[in-house]
């Protein structure tokens, strides 16, 4: 084994083998916030949904906003990593795993919200086609049932896509530990010995997953958008929602990834692996998505404005210059103005610049979902039912807790699994010609490395 290879292994295994008191403090802090959220949920179930701010006729609020937000964040990972793998971008190597983990955890959190928001959460399984003793199927015409299929497919796919390239790394950890840990990592490594045929199988499986996961990811957020566009509600019933949601999801996903990477770089001292160029590249992607997002928003808004439908124009005006105007224009600033300035000018496209832009985008994309869900419901067809919505502590706590849960899960993951793929880094440094074409070599899209 070469010197750099040894350095890679020891650097990237360092967080797994050494734990400081700061780790425990962070875990306890985050876990207590998560516990507060769980207690809020228990309170909501015990006393009834009335403890939230949901009301007639705004029956969806923070929870559905959070749902769309987290499913959106989940589009960073797998999609970006799959695309970068397929185009065989060399700079993907240290990025893919941090991205794929975001997908897995964001989906688990996002997938909880449709359950949290139910009037009877304990009956959530009625959304699934389970063998009911009363022979009752779910209503396959309902977009909420499509949601169930979309999210469970995406979660299964992303977990596989995350797990496959972890197998060789589990084997590395197995070989560097003793006792119980060795046993557990040994089990997770599924008998990996690093033979040529095993590498071939792994590569083939990853190629298949990378190709399969892209249409799944696109369909997931399209189906999430169908939750809105299938209902004849002002400004929901729109054909643009599918692509608009997918673009927004990737947009917020990249922002989430940049924040996660910058945090890892700082706290796990991965400066030698996550270079400014990675942030610059992701920053350029974020800039592209920001422009695309603005394009979609402009399209959506101007068609409604010119269409001048009686009920739609009302929802439009209330977001554009009414009650929700401050939120709307804040969204435009943090989703478009700031990212374009920071990421469009090379001098500002530093790690700090990218992180600032990304925080803005996360806030902006959360607001975007809020501004889709709430103003439409509060300004439906009959003026008698026009209303507004204010969240109450329950949904604020639960929302906060999910952010804590995301950080907690991420922290724990980085503690137990090498957050940067060790073998992929090594493969990048020492490509075996028959297995890995050099990163700079021309490589056909979607070609299997064999």
């Amino acid at each position, binding site marked *: 084994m070469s010197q750099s290879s040894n350095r890679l292994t020891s650097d990237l295994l360092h967080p797994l083998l050494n734990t400081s008191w700061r780790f425990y403090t962070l875990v306890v802090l985050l876990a207590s916030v998560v516990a507060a959220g769980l207690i809020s949920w228990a309170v909501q179930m015990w*006393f*009834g*949904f*009335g403890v939230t*701010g*949901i*009301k*007639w*006729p*705004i*029956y*969806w609020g923070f929870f559905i906003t959070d749902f769309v937000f987290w499913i959106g964040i989940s589009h960073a990972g797998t999609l970006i990593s799959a695309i970068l793998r397929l185009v065989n971008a060399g700079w993907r190597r240290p990025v893919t795993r941090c991205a794929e983990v975001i997908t897995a955890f964001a989906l688990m959190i996002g997938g909880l919200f*449709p359950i949290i*928001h*139910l*009037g*009877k959460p304990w*009956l*959530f399984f*009625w*959304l699934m086609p389970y063998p009911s003793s009363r022979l*009752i199927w*779910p*209503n396959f*015409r*309902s*977009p*909420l*049932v499509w949601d*169930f299929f979309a999210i469970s497919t995406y979660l299964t796919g992303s977990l596989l896509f995350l797990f496959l390239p972890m197998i060789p790394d589990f084997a590395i950890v197995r070989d560097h530990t003793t006792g119980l840990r060795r046993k557990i990592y040994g089990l997770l490594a599924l008998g990996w010995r690093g033979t040529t045929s095993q590498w071939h199988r792994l590569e083939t499986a990853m190629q298949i997953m990378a190709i399969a996961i892209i249409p799944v990811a696109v369909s997931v957020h399209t189906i999430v958008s169908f*939750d809105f566009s*299938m*209902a*004849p*509600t002002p400004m929901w019933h729109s054909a643009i929602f599918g692509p608009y949601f997918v673009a927004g999801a990737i947009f917020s996903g990249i922002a989430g990834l940049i924040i996660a990477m910058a945090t890892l770089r700082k706290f796990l001292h991965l400066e030698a692996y996550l270079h400014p160029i990675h942030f610059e590249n992701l920053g350029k992607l974020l800039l592209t998505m920001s422009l695309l997002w603005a394009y979609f928003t402009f399209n959506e808004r101007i068609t409604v404005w010119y269409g001048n439908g009686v009920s739609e124009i009302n929802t439009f005006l209330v977001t554009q210059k009414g009650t929700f105007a401050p939120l709307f224009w804040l969204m435009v600033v943090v989703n478009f103005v700031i990212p374009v300035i920071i990421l469009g000018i090379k001098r500002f496209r530093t790690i700090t610049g990218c992180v600032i832009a990304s925080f803005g985008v996360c806030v902006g994309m959360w607001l975007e979902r809020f501004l889709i869900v709430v103003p439409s*419901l509060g300004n*439906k*067809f*009959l*003026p*008698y*039912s026009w*209303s507004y919505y204010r969240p109450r502590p329950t949904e604020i706590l639960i929302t906060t807790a999910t952010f804590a849960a995301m950080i907690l899960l991420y922290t724990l993951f980085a503690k137990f699994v090498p957050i940067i793929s060790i073998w992929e880094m090594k493969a990048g440094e020492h490509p075996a010609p028959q297995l890995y074409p050099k990163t700079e070599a021309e490589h056909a899209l979607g070609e299997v490395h064999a």
Partner: protein
Amino acid sequence: MAHRFGMAVDLDRCTGCEACVAACHAENNIATVGDLQAARGRALHWIRVERYFEGEFPDVRVKYRPVMCQQCDAAPCEPVCPTYASHHNEDGLNAQIYNRCIGTRYCANACPYNVRFFDFFNPAWEKPLHLQLNPDVSVREVGVMEKCTFCTQRITAAKIQAESEKRELKDGDIKPACVQSCPAKALVFGDLNDPESEVSRLFESPRGSRLLEDLGTLPKVAYLEGR
């Protein structure tokens, strides 16, 4: 389809007295949520009288419009329900099965008329008010959606009565609570499949229109108004 129940509302007769609202609450065991919760938007009114004002103060005309579930033939609430809690029954009514409802509230968001209500808390009646509950109507628990049923319990009772007397249902056999209690006789209920019924006649009236009919929901409530 044997029956197709519908209602006609004569807006020129409606005085906005809200007797229908009170009668509906009493008939259908609708919980009264109290002032605090009502202020938070949790009040349940299967029928409500919407007030609209025309003109500038002091030259103002007030218009009343009782709005209840429009029992749409193409109901937006039905396809979106994941559990079939909201579905079309054989009498053409939008039935709501409380026991199938898991409270996604999607139906209410899809409903253009906002006539679907969510139970934010378990209902409670102070003693002795619990004694006035209607035994023919189930009390809804927390977490489900509820809405106007055109007093389905009265429809069923009238059908059973007619069957026991070995006759067909005749016009006027069924009176939902709101219709029964309307002092101005602004509300008329009946079978739209019976061309002789009063409601069928009113549906043909040139004064008639449907609420938000351009949405294509095919409502079975007609509003009559002099133009």
